């Protein structure tokens, strides 16, 4: 127990990320199921309007910040150091700090479901209710007087710190801790996409932090950043939010694209087609993602010139994305494809993501988007890219790396069941949303009129959501079964080309008994020019020093939610206590002897 709480081992932190994020994913999914129940019929009465608004807000926020980002982070943590032949990340304690901040931030946000009575309100009454994008000025104190939005803005600020800290850590890890010979253009694509993602994180999160700070000053200290009466405009929030928000969606998709780029070659027994192009298009996607944010604001009246510019930049992103898709298909082409579950999910990613990508292009045309924005057509888009894309990709990663992470192979037959149920379920759930939207149903409404003619489509969608739930139960059963009865994994159950497969599953604490020297992009495969590398010896030639754990990252992390409680409860001294804890944590951390 203690060893887990104080751990600084990237592998353990990866597993902590995984389990925490997976639980949050189920929570977000359960919220989605309640949403779908409410919408199964017109004029539904499953939940009240207030509860519904909290549900979709928390669903979006949870899925984005507490499920998908940290699920990706679990692979950054577990896999990236292995892929680059490192013993750990560059700053192991900072890594632990990131995890604890993430956990506490997530708990802080979700505490809002239960602490209503402390604010003289009912249970299920003070959870955030302004949407995952919290548009000002609805989120100003005047229109949202309760603590709901406070939980949201403070929680997101805490989570931002976690992501930023991890961002610096992984940038340095990937750039500076590569094994000898592992040049940048030899890095596995997953590691590359991780690197791009981290750059997006460290540049995008400060922007939303500023937006949230403004909102905080407006709500707590009477500032007017988003109050039009004072000469300001609520549109500033939208700019700041989407300046962050659009890079954020690429933060969500790029790691999954990286995973797919690992899984396809392994199971097609063929190197990734156009490695260089795939890498550069990933970099380009990340870069271009900065110039398109106003496509979320086509209805706010930016004027024809701005609309045209942002339409063009947005459409351009289809080019590098398409390049990746075609290279993946070319990777499969001429291969010797093994239909493992991981491959199923990777192919499912391509097949489904493209639907979301193409509806994205139809959003990118402002006049067309005027009919689509804020309707279920957008909800269809986001779930095709996020569920059809990111979730499919992450599951590909889970099936692919689970043996490495736990030493046991997930059951393939159950995996296939999981895949097909999820694949069918997601299409049944999300495809009808295209029609629901085009037929005029706005998003974020807790009730709709039977006259709209979308009742049956909504019912179908609800059925699909429950199919997804069943598929996830199959997955959970698979996890459970694998704990004790899963087939034990060898070093390399799949015949992978990258370094992580050269060491035992699960790897020893020190990862590599001897740090390998790399001579090829596919070190473990025979290529025209290279023989496969030698796996490191099973036992290290000499003792390897492994850093002990540390309590300080966790202590420091506790300072942040304490500080957040101060404005929430209007108790000044809590701010000092929180800051004190943070400082004590940092000093303890800085001055404790710790050998990296």
């Amino acid at each position, binding site marked *: 127990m203690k060893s887990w709480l104080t751990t600084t081992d990237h592998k353990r932190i990866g597993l902590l990320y995984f389990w925490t994020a997976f639980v949050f994913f189920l929570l977000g999914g359960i919220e989605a199921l309640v949403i779908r129940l409410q919408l199964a019929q017109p004029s539904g009465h499953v939940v009240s309007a207030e509860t519904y608004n909290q549900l979709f807000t928390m669903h979006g926020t949870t899925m984005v910040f507490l499920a998908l980002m940290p699920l990706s982070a679990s692979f950054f943590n577990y896999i990236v150091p292995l892929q680059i032949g490192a013993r750990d990340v560059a700053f192991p304690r900072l890594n632990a700090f990131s995890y604890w901040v993430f956990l506490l931030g997530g708990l802080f946000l979700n505490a809002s479901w239960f602490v209503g009575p402390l604010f003289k309100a009912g249970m299920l009454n003070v959870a955030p209710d302004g949407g995952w994008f919290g548009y000002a000025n609805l989120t100003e104190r005047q229109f949202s007087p309760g603590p709901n939005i406070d939980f949201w803005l403070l929680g997101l600020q805490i989570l931002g710190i976690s992501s930023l800290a991890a961002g610096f850590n992984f940038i340095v890890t990937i750039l500076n801790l590569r094994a000898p010979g592992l040049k940048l253009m030899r890095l596995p694509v997953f590691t590359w996409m991780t690197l791009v993602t981290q750059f997006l994180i460290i540049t995008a999160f400060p922007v939303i932090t500023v937006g949230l700070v403004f909102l905080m000053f407006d709500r707590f200290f009477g500032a007017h950043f988003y109050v039009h009466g004072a000469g300001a405009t609520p549109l500033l929030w939208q700019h700041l939010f989407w300046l962050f928000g659009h890079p954020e969606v690429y933060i969500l998709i790029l790691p999954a694209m990286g995973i797919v780029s690992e899984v396809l070659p392994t199971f097609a027994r063929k190197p990734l087609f156009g490695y260089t192009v795939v890498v550069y298009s990933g970099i380009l996607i990340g870069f271009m993602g900065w110039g398109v944010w106003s496509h979320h604001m086509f209805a706010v*009246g930016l004027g024809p010139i701005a609309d045209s510019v942002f339409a063009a930049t947005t459409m351009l992103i289809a080019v590098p994305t398409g390049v990746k898709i075609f290279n993946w298909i070319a990777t499969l082409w001429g291969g010797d494809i093994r239909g493992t579950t991981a491959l199923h999910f990777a192919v499912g990613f391509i097949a489904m993501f493209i639907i979301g990508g193409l509806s994205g292009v139809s959003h990118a045309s402002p006049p067309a988007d005027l009919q689509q924005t804020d309707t279920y057509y957008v909800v269809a888009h986001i779930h095709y890219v996020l569920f059809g894309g990111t979730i499919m990709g992450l599951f590909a990663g889970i099936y692919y790396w689970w043996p490495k992470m736990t030493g046991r192979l997930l059951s393939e037959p159950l995996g296939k069941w999981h895949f097909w149920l999820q694949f069918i379920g997601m299409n049944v759930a999300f495809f009808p949303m295209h029609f629901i939207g085009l037929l005029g149903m706005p998003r974020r409404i807790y009730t709709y009129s039977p006259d709209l003619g979308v009742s049956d489509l909504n019912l179908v969608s609800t059925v699909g959501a429950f199919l997804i739930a069943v598929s996830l139960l199959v997955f959970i059963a698979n996890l459970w079964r694998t704990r004790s009865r899963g087939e034990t994994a060898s070093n390399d159950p799949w015949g992978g080309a990258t370094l992580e497969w050269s060491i035992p599953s699960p790897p020893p604490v020190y990862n590599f008994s001897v740090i390998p020297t790399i001579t090829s992009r596919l070190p473990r495969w025979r290529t025209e020019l290279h023989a496969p590398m030698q796996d490191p010896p099973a036992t290290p030639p000499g003792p390897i020093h492994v850093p002990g754990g540390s309590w300080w990252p966790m202590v420091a992390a506790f300072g942040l939610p304490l500080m957040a409680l101060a404005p929430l409860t209007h108790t000044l001294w809590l701010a000092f206590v929180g800051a004190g804890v943070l400082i004590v944590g940092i000093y303890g951390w800085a001055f404790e002897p710790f050998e990296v």
Partner: protein
Amino acid sequence: MTDTSRVRLWLVTLALALSGCAGPFPQSTLRPRSDFAQATDSLFTDIFWWAAAVFVLVEVLLVVALVRFRHREGRPAPKPAHGHTLLEIAWTLAPAVILVFVAVPTVRTIFTSSGEAPADALKVEVIGHQWWWEFRYLDLALTTANELHLPVGKPVRIGITSADVIHSFWAPLLGGKRDAIPGQTNYIAFRADSVGDYSGQCAEFCGVSHANMRLRVIVDSDTAFGAWAQAQLGPPATPPKASPAEQGRAIYARSACIGCHLIQGVSAGVIGPGLTHVGSRTTIAGGILPNDSAHLAAWIADAPALKPGSLMMRMKPPLSDADIAALVAYLQSLK
């Protein structure tokens, strides 16, 4: 048959097939009834076909690859292929070219649908409120709520703004939405091409009852529109002596109602919708309830029960049933 109507037919048929009911889809974006809606619809149709082509291409390639190259015993190991410059160039350029075909009409449509209208267009100001709509006809000095009457075939220019938070004005058959933002006015312009009753609703999340912020646009013939405007401009009806309606007016005049509602010559509130001609409307409360005695009575007794969060709070002290009945009679007399 044009492309537009073909895809529309296709989509609607599919939707019909899926939904099994013969709904008229009052908010469908695929049944344009104005030049503006027409323009966006045909643009969307174009994009749809390009997207469909790309989709089919990619999925077919994917399936073929999977079927042709799936693992079979004894198959020789695949030849490693690291890339192919020509192919890379081809599949970079092809999408780029397609995008030009999408971008050019897009930009053209942006400029033709940017809200500019001829000088003689009917000018209406739409003001979003939590959770109802106010409509002001600038040239007619006329204000109404939740139901917008427009003449068919005439250009109209709608200026959209908000009194509180951000809303979005949307009547899909007549065109795309525009956000109603406090401190800013956005414009849409269109010409409705057929008489009818078009429903719409607020499309930007605006708080508890965002779902209950609906509206209708009633496109009248020229004469019907003139007659309607004439009637709206008149003073409120005076209830006959000793009728329940007259009693209702007295109750109205001494109740909290006057603080929030406007009835010309009776009260001058501005928080809620004007009621001078409330009897002429077909719905109340942001278009969610029919304007009949039962609903009016229930609304006056306890508005938030019918519309969560409604800013028209429950009357304190509660009005008696008799008072409510009289109020209803009065409001219904205000044709």
